[in-house]
């Protein structure tokens, strides 16, 4: 059942590095992370790989497999030809620490910029009543496992490091969207999404949606609705006029 797999792994750090070829034993039903672990146990004890749950739920083992941003624990070897050499490299958008591990602190810094959830007061009976249809949009975004694959694949920062300060990235657009659509939240986050998160930089080319392991429709359900909400506020005189006349928040 087992066979020899040709693996080309990028090894190195910020100063230098290159692809190294390995031949590793592989078994039926295994995923890329399994053979990386076997590589660690048998040939390269200090090979740096970040991982946790190995079940596609924590979003730690993000890397690029044959150039595709993927969770290595969810990338089955059966998707490849047995004779094919599989290349494995670190996320390209973030500084490399060592081997397949990158410094993803960019994302945690962006998380700090999101203003906190600010709920309205509770109902008189001490509860919050929200209907299922009111929470469903937010629930989709809260499926996010923060694997940073969308951030990594987004060309706005992948190809243009200089955009990092002004751009929060797809993961945070759905966070802003989640809060803006939250039935209890009292903040208006439209200006922030534009000014602070830089949603105008996004040209909706949908790579974030393509790589999302949770299948979240980041672009159609998160970014575009937020672009429309920003347009309401910033580019649409009719909506502006309407909100002045009817004094309505929504």
């Amino acid at each position, binding site marked *: 059942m087992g066979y020899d797999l040709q693996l080309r792994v990028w090894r190195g750090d910020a100063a230098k590095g290159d692809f190294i070829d390995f031949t590793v034993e592989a078994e039926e039903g295994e995923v890329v992370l399994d053979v990386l672990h076997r590589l660690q146990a048998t040939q390269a004890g200090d090979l740096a790989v970040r991982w946790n749950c190995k079940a596609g739920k924590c979003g730690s083992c993000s890397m690029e497999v044959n150039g595709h941003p993927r969770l290595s624990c969810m990338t089955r070897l059966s998707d490849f030809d047995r004779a094919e050499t599989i290349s494995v490299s670190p996320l390209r958008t973030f500084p490399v620490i060592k081997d397949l591990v990158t410094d993803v602190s960019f994302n945690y810094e962006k998380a700090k910029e999101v203003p906190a959830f600010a709920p309205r007061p509770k109902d008189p009976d001490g509860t919050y009543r929200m209907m299922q249809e009111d929470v469903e949009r937010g629930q989709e975004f809260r499926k996010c496992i923060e694997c940073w694959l969308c951030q990594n694949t987004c060309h706005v920062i992948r190809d243009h490091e200089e955009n990092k300060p002004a751009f929060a990235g797809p993961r945070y657009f759905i966070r802003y969207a989640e809060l803006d659509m939250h039935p209890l939240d009292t903040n208006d986050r439209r200006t922030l999404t534009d000014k602070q998160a830089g949603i105008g930089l996004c040209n909706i080319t949908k790579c974030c949606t393509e790589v999302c392991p949770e299948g979240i429709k980041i672009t159609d359900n998160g970014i*575009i609705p937020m672009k*429309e909400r920003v347009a309401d506020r910033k580019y649409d005189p009719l909506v502006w006029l309407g909100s002045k006349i009817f004094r309505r928040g929504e």
Partner: protein
Amino acid sequence: MSAQTTVQAPTPGRARITARTMRKDRWWIGPLVTAVVLGGFVVYGTWAALVNANYYAEPYLSPLYAPCLTSSCPEQLLEPRFLADWWILTPALFILPFPLGFRLTCYYYRKAYYRAFWGSPPACAVGEPHKRYTGETRFPLILQNVHRYFFYFALIFAAINIEHAILAFRNHEGEWGHMGVGTLFLVANAVLLTVYTLSCHSCRHITGGRLNHFSRHPVRYWLWTQVSKLNGRHMEWAWASLVVVALADLYIRLVANGTITDITFF
């Protein structure tokens, strides 16, 4: 477009991988197909709009020329023919900016042409060829934000196309009860254009997307749900309606210039 082209040195701190992409699949097929089809439509559409002839073959009016604005239009059509006789340029100049603007600012087409024509990015995880990138934050791309206004116009155009599809059920004498291949083309065009218009992201936003409490607006929530279903296939509607509008124009053109005769069913 070789997969291994080195475009620029990697950013300091990042892994030193110089290849533009490590992808081994034929990622360039997608953008290539888009470029060919979209480019083909632009070429054909421009030519068809500029020739200013053969756009009417009783009872069919090419959708590229609807609504019919010139005084040479047949009397059966209901639109105001405000273009005076001295106007010699194509009436498409007054018509096409609206549907064109709608498609140009459409959230789906934006993805398609940014990828296919501007390579920004050509495909996911493939390096883009530009030194600088400012997205849709500056003129002219900041104008993409007016999409909703084109949507309002697109609704009017959808209505006009429906009207012409209905009128295509009349025969040469203006009596109801006709149907030919041209009718089918115009009906297909009207349906696809309408669905494409209604499936628009701006439409989705206007019907209910901008609300935070669906439960307080059950009718708008229902509308939003329906639009959302259509919106899930916005790309498919975009392509289908584009191809059919060109085919409908071509068919009517061929009938009008006598190359073929319309096949009538009854």
